[in-house]
């Protein structure tokens, strides 16, 4: 799956989880950029991403994602 395609799908997940259609994520997006993305919402997001792409993150990855770019790197590794 190409990076662009991953981003399209990922953006849908973000809009859905945070109930905000104006969200546009990129490599540098972090929790600070999205108002409702706090430590508790983080797991809801992770689970929604897992479902969308049919993959599983391990807890080490969940705890250590520094930005959306790192999440996308992991998704690409898993799906391809």
């Amino acid at each position, binding site marked *: 799956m190409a990076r662009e395609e991953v981003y399209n799908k990922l953006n849908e997940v973000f809009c859905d989880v945070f*109930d905000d259609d104006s969200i546009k994520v990129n490599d540098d997006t972090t929790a600070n950029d999205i108002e409702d993305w706090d*430590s*508790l919402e*983080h*797991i*809801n997001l*992770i*689970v929604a991403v897992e479902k969308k792409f049919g993959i599983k993150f*391990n*807890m*080490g*990855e*969940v*705890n*250590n994602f520094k930005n959306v770019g790192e999440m996308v790197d992991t998704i690409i590794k898993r799906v391809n």
Partner: protein
Amino acid sequence: MSISDWGFYILVTFAVILYYIVPIKFRWIVIFIASFVFVINANGYKLAIITMGIVLWAYLWALVIRKMHNKRVMKKIACCGAVGGIVATLFFFKEQIFFVNIGNSILAHVVDDFRLKSYEIISPLGISYFSLTLISYICEVYWETVTVEKNPLKFMAYSIYFPAMTSGPILKYNDSYKEITNGKKFDYVKFCYGLQRIFWGFFKKLVISERLSIYVSAVYSNYIEYNGLYILIASMAFTLQLYTDFSGCIDIIMGISELFGINLPENFDKPFLAKTLSEFWRRWHITLGVWLKEYILYPVLKSEPFQWIGSWSKDKFGKKTGKKIPVWIALMISWFMIGLWHGGAYKYIFGVGIYMGMIIIMSEALEPVFKSIKKILGINDQVFSWRLFQIIRTYCLFTFGLSFFRAESLSAGFDMWKNMLGNINPWIFFDSSLETLGLSVHDFRILNISIFVMAVIGLIPIKTGKSVRVWISEQNLFFRWFVWISLIISILVFGLYGTGYDASKFIYGNF
């Protein structure tokens, strides 16, 4: 030996001198030896062997888990076994009596002649801290986010790193392992900063916390006579006492580490500026909060049963509320664990556990209600007075829970609050009643002035965006020396010492 004894500082002095004498490559060995000496001295041989045994257990299981890289099920079993062993030991030393008593009170209703046995035992120093550090390491090895340490002595130096054995912080392998085991070059500025932070820690502990403790003890030990507002003031003072005691201890630990050039994770970040209780806990005992989040809250939330609860509650209550329900259940589990971690007693489980969780969940669940109340009353929440209200409210909410921490028991805690509400005595603010609670007028003034000094110093980083030590280092020579000499003199003159000029024990040193 503990962090409040002279012996500890003699050990630190020798260790620091030796650390910079030996070549960089071998400096971790000095840390290991100092930690080893500390563990034996603080515990005696038997408990020291148990401490080493737990560390060795984690070290060996980590090697096994790494070997099972491709065997998913076996790897999971090994990880559960390794963590289970540490939890069982921690449980045996810290919680066993509490749960045996619960078990026996249940058994009393069922059978007459069978009771479980409990053992009055002293636990190894720092077991609540280093156990969590080791569990964190095993989980990270399992998740393959760290490289396994093969050198057992190096691993030991990290796991029993002696300053952190006394009151934390709880360490994460990726953040602190290299800090502790890579030899550091002598850095004059860092060394001075270390000394300064140690003195600041002593100021908080000996000048402020010890005076507050006299005040707090007078009310807590006689809350029938000292009722009404005395109790409210003593509880608020205890919050400050615990902060100056615990954060003072952490300052000393961080300062000692800086003498070796080692940076540890911060445990406090201006908690009294927090506007909500959940923000308060992100700023108070930070390393415990992060540990709970990464190793309990997240794995629980991500587990199958919680996913199922999530889908069920979304169907039942709609998307917005539904997705919060599993989070709230997991939060309550985490808060229960925080309470239990403080000790096997109902007062901890309620006061610093379930109560805190309930307030945090309720403030989230009732947010729409609060919003409409604000709207009806026409409250502007973008102004200073609203933020001040939030800060005071958070302090009060935290204080209510923490008052149980200090009380003799859970029921004594509730009795105290009943006595508080039972008598209205606002005149104690206007006569000299508050000045006679075990403290002389002289001590009372010193206490007020030093709290004021602490508050002013706390404002420096907020106003300048620099740490206090950096800000002071930029001032002129005369002013710098005036500050540091005044600090040392105030500790020597105004510090309240225990027997034999040892500092009194730190509250969080018991865990």
